[in-house]
C-alpha cells in the first residue's frame, strides 16, 4: 500500500478493530486511530482530522449510515470506506449515494481483505 496518511478505524467489535489494525500494520500503515461507535468516531474525527475513515456498517445506536451522514455534514470532503460483512447491496448502495468512496468486505480471508484494503485505499487517493 502506498497510502501513508492517518486512518480512523470505526467498528463496535474489538476483535475486528484488532484484526483490521494488524492487517493495516502489515500493509505498512502505522498511523491509526480507532473508535468503537458512531459518536466516538465523530469526536475522534474532529480531534485528529484523519485522511481516511474505515467505517463499519452495522453498529448499535448510531449505525454506519447515520455516522456517514454526520461525517459528511461535518466535512463534505472526508474520505470514507465502508466495512461490511456479507455484502448487503441495499446498504452499500445507500452508503455510496451518501458519498462513501467504496466498500470492503471484512469477512473474507485475510489475504483478500489486505488486497482489498490496499488497492481500494490507494485508488481513493490516486496512489496506485
Amino acid at each position, binding site marked *: 500500500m502506498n497510502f501513508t496518511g492517518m486512518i480512523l478505524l470505526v467498528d463496535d467489535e474489538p*476483535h*475486528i478493530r*484488532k*484484526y483490521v489494525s*494488524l492487517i493495516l500494520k502489515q500493509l505498512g500503515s502505522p498511523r491509526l486511530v480507532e473508535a468503537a461507535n458512531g459518536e466516538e468516531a465523530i469526536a475522534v474525527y474532529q480531534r485528529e482530522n484523519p485522511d481516511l475513515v474505515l467505517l463499519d456498517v452495522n453498529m448499535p445506536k448510531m449505525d454506519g449510515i447515520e455516522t456517514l451522514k454526520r461525517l459528511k455534514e461535518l466535512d463534505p470532503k472526508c474520505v470514507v470506506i465502508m466495512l461490511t460483512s*456479507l455484502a448487503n447491496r441495499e446498504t452499500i448502495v445507500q452508503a455510496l449515494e451518501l458519498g462513501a468512496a467504496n466498500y470492503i468486505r*471484512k*469477512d473474507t480471508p*485475510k489475504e483478500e*481483505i489486505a488486497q482489498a484494503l490496499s488497492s481500494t485505499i490507494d485508488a481513493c487517493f490516486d496512489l496506485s
Partner: protein
Amino acid sequence: MVTPPTSAPIQLAGRKILIVDDDRLNLRILGGILKGEGYVLAEADSGERALELYATFRPELVLLDVMMPGIDGFETCRRLKRDYGDKCAPVIFITAKNESDDVVEGLGAGGVDYLPKPFKPKEVLARLRSHMQNQILSEQQKLLVEQLSKADAAKNRFLGMAAHDLRNPLASIRGLAEFLREGAVGPLNPDQIELIETIHAASQSMLEMVNELLDVATIESGELKLHLEPCNLGELTAKCVTLINMEAAKKKTHVAYELPAPPVTLVIDAAKMKQVIDNLLSNAVKYSPPGSTITAIVQAGATPGTCHILVRDQGPGIPEGERDKLFKDFSRLSIKPTGGENSTGLGLAICRKIVEAHRGTIVAENLPSRGCEFRVTLPANP
C-alpha cells in the same frame, strides 16, 4: 407458536347454512330438520336472492335447489364459485330423485354433493354433518399450514441472523490465528504453533458450517437469485478440480477430470454452480479411502443443449435405504468421512436447491463395482 388442531369433538351448533329453494314447503321442511342440530339458518327463494344473501350472511354451507325461476341452481353455484373462488362454502344441490343428469351437472358446476327429494331427515343430517366436519377439518388444516409456514420463515430468519452474527467473530479468530502463526507478534515454539494450527483449523471448519447455514437460510427464504451468464462448464470444473486436489493430496487421493470436446457453454450462475461442483468433489474426497481416484466428467446430454456433470468416487457408496435422505436438510448418512472431517448435512441439500433453481436435476447412484456417482443434469436454458 403452532397450535395443533384440538382433538375435541367438532362443534356443529352455530355453523351457518344458507337454504335456497323457490318452494316454501321445502324451505320449511329443511328448516325443521336442521334447526334441531343447532345450525343457524338463512333462507332465499331464488338464485338472485341467494347471491345477495350469501354476501352478508357468509354461510359455511349452501343447500341449493336446482329448478328455480330466474337463474337456476347450477348458474347460482357457478356465480358463487366465480365470486368467492377457493373461499366459497361447499354447495349441496337439492334434486328430485332419479335425476342423474342433474347430479352430474351439479357436481360439474362445483357442488360437493346432492340431497334427493323427498328428504329423509336422518340422511340429511348425516350428510350435512359429514360435509361440515370435512370443512372444519380443512379450515383447521389451512390454519395449521399457515402457522407452520410462518414458523418456518421465522426459523430461516433466525438461522440467517445467527449465522451472520457468528461469521464475523469466526473470521476474526481465523485471521488472528494466522497472524500468530506467521509470527507477526513474535516467534512461537512448535507446541504453540501446534495449538494455533488447531485453533485455525477449528475456526475454518466452523466458518464453513456457518456459511452452509447461511446458504440454506438464503435459499429457503426465497432470496436465491441466479446471475445467469454464459459459462464454459468444462473450464469451471477444471478449476474446481485443481483446487480440490490440494485437499485430496492430504488424504492421498486424486481427482481426475474428463472434459467434452468441443467445449460446452451453458447459461448458468457460475458462482453457484461452482459451489455445487466444489461440494460434490469435497464430499467425494471426504468419503473416499486413501489411494482412491475420483473422477469428474462433463459431457453433453442426449437432448441437444443439455449437459451432465458426473462425479464418481471409489468410496463406500450410499448405504441401502438411505438414498432418500441424501438431498434433505440436516440429514447425514450412517457412513463417516474417512479423515474425521465435519459435516452439517446441508451440503447436498444446498446443491439440490441450486441445481433445481437452474431447472436441472441431481441424482446419486451406487456404481456396480464400488463407489457412487452423482449426476447433475442441466437444461439448455435454465
